[in-house]
């Protein structure tokens, strides 16, 4: 591969960018919805210390999607079934952080292994195989894109509905229960919403990379903000910027979308870390005085 090839892979499509954009319009919308919801739900993922759970759910979602591919049913449905089953198992059995992590540690390789088995039994187009693990939003059919957007919107509404009790439960489950918050129901509802959005993310950036949109934006926001509104808002902005920015850059060339998304979200995180540590030093210096 010479420099001209690399240039082609990166920017080969610039000449027809308008036409390409029209083609991938729905993908951009799906990315925007995922970025928005991923950023918001990520704040709770961080607060509840569930980054590992997100990864575990995504592997079972992958297994579900691979199974669907093998038996010839809808892949989105398959990934949702996989995710929700994983979320229910993790939410039902793992109330305590330590139990939860061991359950996830057991589930994850099993899910990934199952998925690889199903994929190797599947003899259809091979492009589909890897797209589940590493994502390729632009190859998702438009009917499925509609579903992904609808599911993202549902998760957004559900999350806003349980927002305050969920925040209370994430911070202090005992006080929340004492004040009449149905903490078990809220936790299970959160796991269901998390499962659904993970299934969406599997199709957009792939099972191995979901954390780039469900964890990284929120982690970045928490480095530079601390308000109950500013953190979710920033996380959502970071999520949308990563997802939409990644898709818009990727379609200029022939490279897959995921590396663009993961790189943008990582760079945002790095910048926030630097900004946050500078500010942290200032705050400490002021309070030490």
């Amino acid at each position, binding site marked *: 591969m010479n420099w001209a090839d690399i240039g082609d892979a990166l920017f080969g499509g610039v000449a027809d960018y308008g036409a390409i954009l029209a083609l991938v319009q729905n993908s951009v919308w799906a990315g925007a919805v995922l970025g928005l919801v991923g950023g918001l739900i990520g*704040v709770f993922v961080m607060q509840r210390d569930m980054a590992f759970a997100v990864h575990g759910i995504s592997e079972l979602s992958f297994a579900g999607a691979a199974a669907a591919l093998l038996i010839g049913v809808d892949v989105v449905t398959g990934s949702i079934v996989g995710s929700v089953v994983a979320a229910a198992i993790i939410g039902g059995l793992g109330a305590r952080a330590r139990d*939860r992590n061991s359950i996830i540690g057991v589930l994850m390789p099993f899910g990934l292994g199952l998925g690889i088995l199903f994929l190797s039994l599947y003899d259809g187009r091979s492009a589909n195989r890897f797209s589940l693990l590493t994502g390729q939003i632009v190859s998702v059919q438009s009917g499925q894109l509609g579903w992904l957007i609808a599911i993202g919107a549902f998760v957004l509404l559900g999350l806003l509905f349980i*927002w305050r009790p969920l*925040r*209370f439960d994430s911070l202090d489950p005992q006080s929340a*229960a*004492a*004040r*009449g918050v149905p903490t078990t129901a809220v936790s299970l509802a959160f796991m269901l919403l998390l499962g659904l959005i993970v299934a969406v993310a599997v199709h957009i950036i792939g099972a191995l990379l979901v954390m780039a949109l469900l964890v990284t934006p929120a982690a970045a926001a928490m480095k530079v903000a601390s*308000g109950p509104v500013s953190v979710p808002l920033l996380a959502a902005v970071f999520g949308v910027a990563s997802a939409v920015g990644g898709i818009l850059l990727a379609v200029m060339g022939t490279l897959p979308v995921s590396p663009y998304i993961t790189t943008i979200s990582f760079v945002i995180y790095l910048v926030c870390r630097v900004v946050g540590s500078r500010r942290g030093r200032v705050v400490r210096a002021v309070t030490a005085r």
Partner: protein
Amino acid sequence: MSAPTATGAAPLRITGAALRRDDRELWAGLDLEVQPGELLAVLGPSGSGKTTLLRAILGLESLSAGRIEALGRPVHGRGNRAIGYIPQQRPLPPETALRGRDLVALGIDGHRFGFPIPRRGDRARVEELVDAVGARAFADRPVGLLSGGEQQRLRIGQALADDPRLLLCDEPLTSLDLANQQDVVALIDGYRKRTDAAVLLVTHDINPVLGAVDRILYIAGGRFTLGTPDQVLTSEVLSGLYGAPVSVLRAGGRLVVVGAPDAEVSHHHHHDEASA
């Protein structure tokens, strides 16, 4: 601030309560009435069911036998916003996305489902509570960067959101230094004197609250004793309770219980399991 409950009804009335765990009786035949304005401390070694008693009053756990009436009503359902609940101080993660006043605000809107839009009057109420617990100076700082004492003040503000006539405090002084312990006790005691609320306070160290306590419920060795500090905190009574020789020593205004099995060390780790 708020109207008193129906006259004659004690804020807390427990009759014939018993708690068994794995066929072991922790206590039985507990009758307890806490009057308005009374501060009752619950003492005892870990595993004696002190926290369970509090949780049962809130409807979060059930006793093996007995009846509980809180604020004139039998306990029903899970949780009760009319009761103020002050938990043990646990440090919040440094990056928690809340400022001081938001921790107080959870007492006002933390239970509300639906689109997260503040209601009229919420803000003013938060400011009132912030001032009531002397948290004005750090109300705008991220909670994760506050000291344990500051966080605990905010939790008290949260617990007072609905002007409770009954306060339940579960080891509210644990892991605080002496000055902060005194501040927290002063806040709780001040609220009770101002509003005539009843207070039930679980603690493993009686000293910080000794000056404010009206009565003590001491649970140990499958039995319990109820009385004023002078009645309960004697070598004779505690030896009888533990079934082993126990000495109560007074030195420099402090009180030390010596020889009680599992009583002299801090033993407040037993109800950490629910936190995930």
